[in-house]
């Protein structure tokens, strides 16, 4: 009974995400494409959920839907209006697009079919993996992830500082003619 329901759910989510992913690349309205993208991300979060990775599913929605898609929509809103449509792609662009997508598909299918995935037996999976993830992230032993975690934090920090530097207003000082950075953003 459980098995059947899970199978039905899995295939519907999978079909849903494939269809929406196709819609993302074929839609000519860029904001609709963003909404379809949100659908793809939500259904992949649902797939994570079915694998028992609740935390990953939550973070997927938090980061991708709440962060990336919102920023995407925000950026599109600054540039376009409702009536504008994307140009129809030229033949060369279409061909190269199909070629790139097809070869990526071939490579990923080949890699996936060659990899052996260790399957967890029923019951081997911990009930709540949030605490386990937290411990792994703070573990500096051979199995821990504290170094990548800190490196990513540094990367994000530098990206934030870079963003501030770019967004800062610069003014030309009258006395020296040097470009000096205003400390206060008015």
């Amino acid at each position, binding site marked *: 009974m*459980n098995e059947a329901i899970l199978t039905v759910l899995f295939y519907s989510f999978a079909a849903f995400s494939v269809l929406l992913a196709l819609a993302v690349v074929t839609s000519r309205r860029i*904001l609709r494409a963003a*909404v379809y993208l949100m659908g793809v991300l939500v259904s992949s979060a649902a797939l994570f959920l079915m694998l028992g990775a609740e*935390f990953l599913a*939550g973070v997927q929605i938090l980061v991708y839907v709440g962060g990336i898609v*919102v920023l995407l929509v925000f950026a599109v*809103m600054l540039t376009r209006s*409702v009536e504008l449509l994307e140009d129809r792609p030229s033949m060369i662009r279409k061909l190269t697009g199909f070629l790139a997508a097809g070869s990526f598909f071939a490579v990923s299918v080949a890699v996936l079919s060659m990899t052996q995935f260790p399957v967890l037996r029923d019951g081997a999976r911990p009930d709540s993996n949030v605490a386990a993830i937290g411990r792994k992230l703070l573990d500096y032993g051979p199995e821990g992830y504290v170094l990548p975690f800190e490196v990513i934090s540094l990367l994000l920090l530098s990206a934030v500082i870079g963003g501030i530097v770019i967004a800062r207003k610069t003014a030309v000082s009258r006395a020296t003619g040097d470009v000096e950075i205003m400390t206060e953003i008015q």
Partner: protein
Amino acid sequence: MNTWEVTTLAERSAEALSSSFWGAAGYLGLAMLGMAGFVAVLGMVLIYAERKVAGHFQCRLGPMRVGWHGTLQTVADTVKLLLKEDIVPYQADKMLHILAPLLMFIGTILVLLVLPFSPIVQVADVNIGVVYITAVSGFSVLGILLGGWSSNNKWSLIGAMRAGAQIISYEVSATLALLVVVLFSGSLQLSEIVRSQAEGWWIWRAHGVGIVAFLIFFIASTAEINRTPFDMPEGESELTAGFHTEYSGLRFAFFFLAEFINMFLVAALTSTLFLGGWMPFHIGGFENFNALMDLIPAGLWFTGKTAFLVFVLMWFRWSFPRLRVDQLMRLEWKILLPIGLVNLFVAAVVVLYGLYFFPVR
């Protein structure tokens, strides 16, 4: 001493699934029906309360004509709203125009799903509760942005942009304040967070850290749901009605209802995280006093705290003037965020050394 067993509808449904599929489906249907009824009635009650509170703050009576003390006024208004013509502006992106209010409403309903009303009234108790809430509230932002953009109207667009910028900014502070509670209780699960407050609520157990986190969370959440004094996204004196200028009839009702339910959600979440949720007022060690407090049912504690915070939100509305956009951004990035960061750090120290009152671990 009470053990506070938590039973959720999802658990019961999972139990029923082992015997029959239809039992589980019945539970889920019941949950959906219950939610729909709850949302509709809550929306009407909140709108009535808002109008009455507003009236009395301004030395008026508020609605008085329809029903006893105007109690049927919102029912009449709702019926009127449902019968209105539904207009989609010419050259609007019709699909997104229709989708946007639904997205906003979905964001609201999904948060309602994990809210612990009482130990026995909760739909699902997911173990990533806090992450889940922050995650699904992203749908509301998208709803507002898409609604404003797809209307093909300048007021809507500006309102949506303001709303987006405001919500994204204030989400940072709200999350920082949330993390303080996660640190204190050591769990992301909402029922676990409530149960960790059995010896006392987090707002007063941690030497001021809890109070600061409470204030930051409450202010930032008020901004996130676009309520006065943070209601620039729909500032009617400058933007007609902001992102929902072009909405009418049922779809406007969705936006309107989501806004009021969001107000309830902010109050309910704040009371769950900082004021103990359904946990009665306890002082660690005072067994007799605690037993006396346990006589009041848990659901009533939750309702009382939430109703009080809803009243405070309405009180805000009639006490503070609207902020300007630059003041709003300065408040977030230069005042709330630094305080929130320092507060989180202090909270970590407090938790590390077990400095809070009545440590349990």
